[in-house]
């Protein structure tokens, strides 16, 4: 299809605005990156815009000073992978069930599920529940509570609803079982929305530290984010009264501030998860419905 002259102008305008957006959107991360490579005390002076003034790797050394962070990294990867893979499969299945207009419990189950988004019992009863389930200081406390999210199910269901209803009907006539319809027809067609949900679940799981803090503070179960929160919060000590016994001469360059540490940590925690998206992008293409039908 050849583009007209007018189309080309529109293309130009869109590309121009997108370029501006790219600059605005890339800047925060860029600023964080240069802060992470700049000496902490120098950063405190501000006006750090485009390039580090005093290069250092010390901020990163402070993040990686013990091997705890590597163990925590493995825990984080494990929880993210398991939650994402299992979560997406079973959320999709439930979404399929709820998309079936003739299902007699559809209304009830949908309401029952959606309500969970808006009710909040609070932390203390949640703690008791997990304790009774044996989830305190247990790896599965990272996985189970976030496995099926109502929001995700609704989003997938909406997508399924937008597919031609005839797909399911003709499969039923062919005598296919529900699970078979889900796995063979619905699942492949839903790749774009499932990829989106996978991204949500993965990012949520990767970024969370609160569940470690409250439910699994044990060192062996520490996650990357929790380990970083620990380093960060201990660096805040200098904001509180400094003990008198330290005769620091304060000329030392090997020092960190909460801000420089936060910058380095953000880079360490963000880069692995940023990589996920381009990988998922390949599922963001129109699926040929005809090909699945056959």
């Amino acid at each position, binding site marked *: 299809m050849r583009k007209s002259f007018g189309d080309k102008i529109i293309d130009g305008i869109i590309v121009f605005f997108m370029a501006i957006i790219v600059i605005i959107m890339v800047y925060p991360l860029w600023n964080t990156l240069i802060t992470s490579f700049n000496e902490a005390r120098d950063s405190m002076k501000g006006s750090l815009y485009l390039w580090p003034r005093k290069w250092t790797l010390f901020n990163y050394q402070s993040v990686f000073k013990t091997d705890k962070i590597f163990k925590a990294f493995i825990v984080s990867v494990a929880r993210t992978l398991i939650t994402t893979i299992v979560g997406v499969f079973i959320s999709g299945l439930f979404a399929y069930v709820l998309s079936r207009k003739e299902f007699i419990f559809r209304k009830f189950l949908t309401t029952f599920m959606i309500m969970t988004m808006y009710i909040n019992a609070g932390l203390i009863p949640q703690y008791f529940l997990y304790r009774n389930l044996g989830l305190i200081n247990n790896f599965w406390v990272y996985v189970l509570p976030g496995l099926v999210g109502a929001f995700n199910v609704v989003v997938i269901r909406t997508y399924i609803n937008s597919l031609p209803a005839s797909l399911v009907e003709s499969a039923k006539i062919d005598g296919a079982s529900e699970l078979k319809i889900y796995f063979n027809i619905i699942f492949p067609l839903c790749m774009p929305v499932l990829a989106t949900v996978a991204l949500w679940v993965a990012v949520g799981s990767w970024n969370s530290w609160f569940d470690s803090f409250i439910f699994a503070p044990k060192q062996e179960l520490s996650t990357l984010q929790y380990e970083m929160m620990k380093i960060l919060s201990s660096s805040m000590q200098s904001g509180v009264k400094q003990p*008198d016994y330290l*005769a620091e001469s304060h000329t030392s360059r090997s020092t960190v501030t909460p801000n420089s540490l936060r910058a380095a940590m953000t880079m360490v925690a963000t880069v692995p998860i940023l990589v996920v998206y381009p990988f998922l992008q390949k599922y963001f293409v129109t699926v040929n419905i005809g090909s699945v039908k056959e």
Partner: protein
Amino acid sequence: MKSKRILTMLLVAVMIITVFSACGPVVTSPDTPAPTTAAKPKDGDTPAPGTDGDKLEPITFTMFVAGPGEAPPADNKIVQKIKEITGVTIDYEFLVGDMEQKVGIMIASGDYPDLIGAGQARGRFLNAGSFAALDDYLPNYPNLWKHYGDYMDRLRSVSNDGKVYILDIWSRQYWLNDGEDDFYEADYNGPAFWIQKDVLAWDGYTYPKTLDEFFDLLERYYEAHPTIDGQPTLPFEVHSQDWRSFCLKNAPQHLIGGRNEGDVVVDPDTLEVEIYQNKWYAKDYYKKLNEVYKKGLINPETFTRNYDQYLNVISNGRVLAMFDQQWNFQDGEFVLISEGKINRTYVPLGISYDGTPVPYNRVRNEGIIGGNGMGISIECKDVERALQFMDTLLEEDVHRLMYWGIEGEDYYVDANGRYRRTPEQKANFDNPDWRLANAGLVIGDQFPKLEGRYSNGNSTGAGTQPEERLENQFDYDKEFYQKYGYYTKSDFLPLMDHPGYPEVWSIFSTMEDDNIAKPIFDQITDLQNRYLPDVIMSTDFEAAWAEYAQRYESVDYPALEAEIERQIQMSLYE
């Protein structure tokens, strides 16, 4: 339809069952902190308290610290040495997120660690009965008894039932000669009007004693130096973000000579308490600020600067003066020091209304004040062993390991028997990551410790060793202080005797939860934070102040005053 009803009933039934089965906390009523059951070692071979002659069975204590910090790696050499000596490993958990949530859950569930660094959560833990009473144990441990024996009343004063639950970990001073060592007190880092040394030097090493003289000097210096290092000069900063708004609010109490109590002043004779943010000495202060604001000595952006931006402008050397506590802006000062701009660092001024310098918060050390430390939880697996561990930490040899390190590696002893450090050893200690991996401070900081002098006359830490401190002083500072006949920046303020009760702001952290003072205190804090910046920036000061004062009258602050008076009476030292 019916299926719906069945499901609903099922749901209700399940919920009822859970309420009755699942939710009870491990109930431990607060008045029976049974040390006898929890403390007994398994097979009865109680190690003799205080002495650790035989090989001790290894034991691990879990410890929660309600404050920031970082656990040392297991291969830290001092941690290993102390493990060899005591057989004890401490498994730390430092607070990372919200204290209320973490502590609330700990209390509700009864899932306590063995040891608890109470920090700001002490009131929470005390009211919940989380600690084991230690009164009967302490006399059995010679070092602990020497440490606390004289202060039992103060330790008891924090609890409601008059027992010892929290062992103070700071401020137990061991001096050689009483009083004589005061010169070696640590640098003052509390509240004051802090002013750049360069401003005073420019004026011929003067000492402004009143607000008028102070702002007059700032104005003259500002006229002569409209920019500093190419950036606009900021004559006076009033930081007012969030909880750091003490920079905005706390000056008036000092201008009439008071200590840092927070939002009240206490009459030193009658111990009567007065809220001061609506009194004449507050009004006069804000009126002065309003006046200098109109002259351009205060930049309006000072009220919206976040903490980072505040440190920005300080570390650029552009701020001539501010009311603040030194620890709050010291990170900015460190930058100035590392760039050699010693003349842009600050000294405190004891400005007052009547023109004689007042002490602000330079208060003679009162030793142990009670409540500021750690406790042993009611779930502790072995109370006696824990106390014995702490007793051992108070041995001079063990203490030296934690605070000086290993002789020959981390410090050396000179010909006069004084502990000194080579520049390299100093540099190591300056590096927080090195300290975490190689020093024992992490242990020491959480437990009772010696402060002051060892029996051989050396200081209990490098920071208070006189030779080390003088060596660290910059030439600029030495000369600067000499012009005034001073030795340190602390000397800019007179020294005040301790008034005999804890600072009022700290009383709030041990108050019971439903104390009536708390909501009233919230209201006045809100009011002050919301109105004072407007008052300072207003074109018509009197009208703005009148509105603020009128709003103030709608708050029941006399009830707050009465309650604080009662609390002070309760916590008076003997």
